[in-house]
Every structure is written in C-alpha cells, then in structure tokens.
C-alpha cells in the first residue's frame, strides 16, 4: 500500500507540468497574472478552447494531413526494405543496417539545412509534400530497423510454402509477410505519426510563412504574437497533445515495444 502511495505521488509530481498546462488552459485572462496563481481552475473558462476552434483548426488539419502522409510514405519505404534486409539478404545488408543506425544520429537541424537548400532550388519550400518527405526521414531509419527485426522472426518455411505455391517475392511480401507484420506496422505508424505531428525543426525551416503550416508553428506564432493569452496557447497545447495521449491509452503495448526496440536490439 505504501509503495502504491509513493508511486502515485511520484507520478503526480512528474505529471505536474501536464496538469498545469490543463489548468492554465482553463484560466481566465484576468486571473492569468494573479500571484500566487490558482492551483485549480476555479473560474473555469473555455475562452482558450474557443480561440483554438476559431484560429487553430487549419493548422491542426495540416498537421493531420502531414502526419498521415508521413505514415504512408514511411511504411511504403520501410516495409519492403525491412523485408529485403531480413529475408532476401542482399549483399551489403549489414553495412546498410549500420548506415541506418548512423542516419538516426544526424541532428535534425543539419538535415533541415540540407532540405532548405534543396527545396529552395526545387521550389518545394512551404509545400505539404515537401514537409512530408522531410518528416519521413525522422522515422524511416527507425522503421526499417523495426521491420527488419520483426520480419526476421517470420519462419522461413512459410515463405518457402508460398514460393512452392508459385508466389513470387512480391506476392509473398504482400500476401504473407505484410499481414503477419501487423504489429510492426502499427508500431511504426504510431511513431511516424507522433514524430511528424511533433516536428518543429523541419516545420520552422521549411514551412514557415507558407499557406499550410502545422500545429507546432501555430503554437509558436501564438507564443510570439500575444504573450498575454496563455490560456489560448495552453489550450492549443492540450489539443496538440491529444494524439499522444490517445495513442498512449489505446496502444501502450506498441509504444513500450517501440521505445525499447532501439535499445534491446543492438
């Protein structure tokens, strides 16, 4: 019992900033500068959320499109690559896996600068497809590693049986490997979506000032423009956190698998 109490207290302490975000999002403008601040939203208001509905919906829509696009692109690129690395054993596969590990370590800003230079020439700056491609580089190396690890576990007999029935590698991939890798697809999709949804570096370098800006820039502009309306900023932050919360609640298993995958699989 004592341990549970300690555990709850520790968790409460850890999650205090999250609670504070919620609290501030419900606080009235006139109470915002009160000292000391109210610990509970006693005069709760939805002003902040109304502001979100009024101003932030296009940003949220853009983020959703970019997130889904990134998921599609990531799975489309990484699943065949993982299959090839795990089962078809191409020459140089080991080197490729190593390069993918290294690719994960490239700082986002370095990538962002490279993208900026390329997109400037191609005219892809401030475009949604451009941002999708850029965001997918956050997830593809991780995704290939997950797919490779997962698909190595698929028994070879199954693939041989499919081959005996006359299925080529592409058919085997589509009808046997992909359905069996459902868990890996879910894990990869979750992380690809979360990463592109939370991305700020690429958004601020590649999409800033464009017609379609994601929600991270929406919040950033808020902070820059009106320093007073913190309830609106925090309300946007709450809404922006919703995907992460939903994913954590619905798919905790996959999240834990994803977090440990990088560390356990050396």
């Amino acid at each position, binding site marked *: 019992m004592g341990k549970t109490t300690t555990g709850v207290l520790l968790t409460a302490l850890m999650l205090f*900033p999250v609670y504070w975000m919620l609290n501030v999002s419900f606080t009235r403008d006139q109470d915002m500068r009160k*000292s000391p601040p109210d610990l509970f939203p006693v005069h709760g208001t939805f002003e902040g959320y109304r502001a979100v509905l009024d101003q932030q919906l296009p940003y949220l829509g853009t983020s959703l499109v970019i997130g889904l696009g990134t998921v599609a692109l990531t799975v489309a690129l990484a699943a065949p690559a993982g299959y090839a690395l795990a089962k078809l054993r191409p020459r140089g596969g080991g080197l*490729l896996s190593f390069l993918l590990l290294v690719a994960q370590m490239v700082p986002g800003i370095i990538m962002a600068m490279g993208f900026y230079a390329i997109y400037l020439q191609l005219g892809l700056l401030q475009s949604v497809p451009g941002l999708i491609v850029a965001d997918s580089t956050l997830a593809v190396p991780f995704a290939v590693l997950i797919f490779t690890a997962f698909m190595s576990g698929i028994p070879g007999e199954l693939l041989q049986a499919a081959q005996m029935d006359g299925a080529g590698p592409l058919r085997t991939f589509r009808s046997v490997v992909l359905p069996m890798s459902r868990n890996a697809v879910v894990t990869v999709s979750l992380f690809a979506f979360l990463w592109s949804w939370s991305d700020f570096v690429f958004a601020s370098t590649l999409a800033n000032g464009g017609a379609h800006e994601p929600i991270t820039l929406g919040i950033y502009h808020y902070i820059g423009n009106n320093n007073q309306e913190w309830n609106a900023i925090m309300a946007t932050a709450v809404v922006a956190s919703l995907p992460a919360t939903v994913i954590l609640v619905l798919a905790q298993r996959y*999240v834990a698998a994803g*977090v440990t995958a990088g560390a356990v699989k050396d």
Partner: protein
Amino acid sequence: MTLYLALFYAYPLYRNLDLSLRDYTVRSFVQGDAPFTGLENYRKVFDDPTFAPALTHTVVFTAVCLLFQYAIGLALAVFFNQHFRLSATLRALFLVPWLLPLIVSASTWSWMLNSDSGIVNALLSAVGIGPVNWLTSPEWSLTSVIIANIWIGVPFNLVVLYSGLQSIPVSLYEAAALDGASAWRRFWSITFPLLRPVSAITLLLGLVYTLKVFDIIWIMTKGGPADSSTTFATWSYRLGFGNLLPAFGPARPSATCSSSRPWCSAWCT
C-alpha cells in the same frame, strides 16, 4: 527474383543516397556555389566569440542532463520493478512527457518558469525564496532548459532501464538476501553491474538525443539572453536561419556550413 531483389534493395539504397545527398548539399554550398575557401570558415568559427561559450554550454548541458536523466530514471526503474498495485499503469503515465510534442513541453515550462506569474516562483516564494528570473537572466537560463530537458528524458531512461531490470534473475536477489546483503548492497553488487550493458546503450542513445536537442532551447530562450544558453545546435540554427525568417543571402550559407561542419564532425568522432 534478382529483379525484386534489386527493387527492394534499391528502396533503402535510394533512401540512403538521398540522405547522403542532403548532407552533401550542406557542405557543397561553399565548395560548389561559392569560391573554394578551404579551412577559412573553420577559422572564422573558432575565432568567433560565441564559440567557446557555445562549446561549454553544449558540454555542460549534455553532461548534466545525461547524469540526472540516468540517475532519476534508474531510481524510478528500481522502484517500479517492485510490482505493487497500479505499478504498470503509473509506469505508462510516466511516458506522457516523452510523447508530448516538444513545443508543448517547452511552452508549458516557459510559462511555469515565468518570472512574474509562473508557478515555480510562486512555490519558491511560499517557502521564502525570492523570485528567480529563470528564463530572462543569464545565470539561470541554462539551468532552466536543463531542468525541462531532464523532465523530458527521464521517461525514456525509465522504460529502457526497467526492461533491463526485468532480465536480471530474481534468484540472484534471493540468494543475496539469504546471505544477509542489505538492499543498498544488493543494488550495487547485483543490479548495477548486471545492468551495465543496458546502461551503456541508454547513455549512448541519451547522448545522441541530448546533443541533438534544439527545439526546447530555441522555444524557451532562443539561446539567450546574451548567448547564456546557446549550444552548438541553436547557434548553428541562428547563424543559418536567423530569426525564423530565412533570408538566404550570400553570407548565410557559408555561416551555416561553417557552423554545422565542425559540429557534424564533432559528433561523428
């Protein structure tokens, strides 16, 4: 068969080529579009008055964050390894800070650390400590971003170290307890040595992530005031893109390249 092999192999190869091209582009800006200057840019960077502080801040930021993230993460992992009621649920809740978009965490922390209306200063004044200008004073800005980053990094350390703890056989602890080893002794003689491989990977990944940290610092302090929280990450960004209004004048790319290149080679080694 070979066709498909080539096709599936070509995908990742294409990705890699793509990646390498992008990195290459950063470098080739100076060498391709501008006259070749050799090590001139490096010299400029090393001579820049911001270089030494940025280096110090990067080292301090990384070392302090890693130390605290690991220590707190390990303590929590050991605690949650005891299997009490609700432990699984609470452990899942601990993941929240790690999953939140960085801009959300960063802006929440900026408001909590606000000098006049932040909750942190309100709590401090309740115990009789005067207001601290967390984000606006040069003495505290680095500490503030370190605190926020530790908060974000603890969940990752917790989850990975916890999964490492799970693989240590319970019988070892039972045997040690029979021999009369105290809990403290058991931790240092069994848990810590056996956890070493997992610890090494956790710290390595932590190092990589911490060196990359840019969002939090940029959103909370923009590296300021007066460069007091500037790291290589924010510095190179500021040199390259200034105030989020990229004006790609002829001076900017060279600044970008020169600042990112030594940094790039720094993390490579």
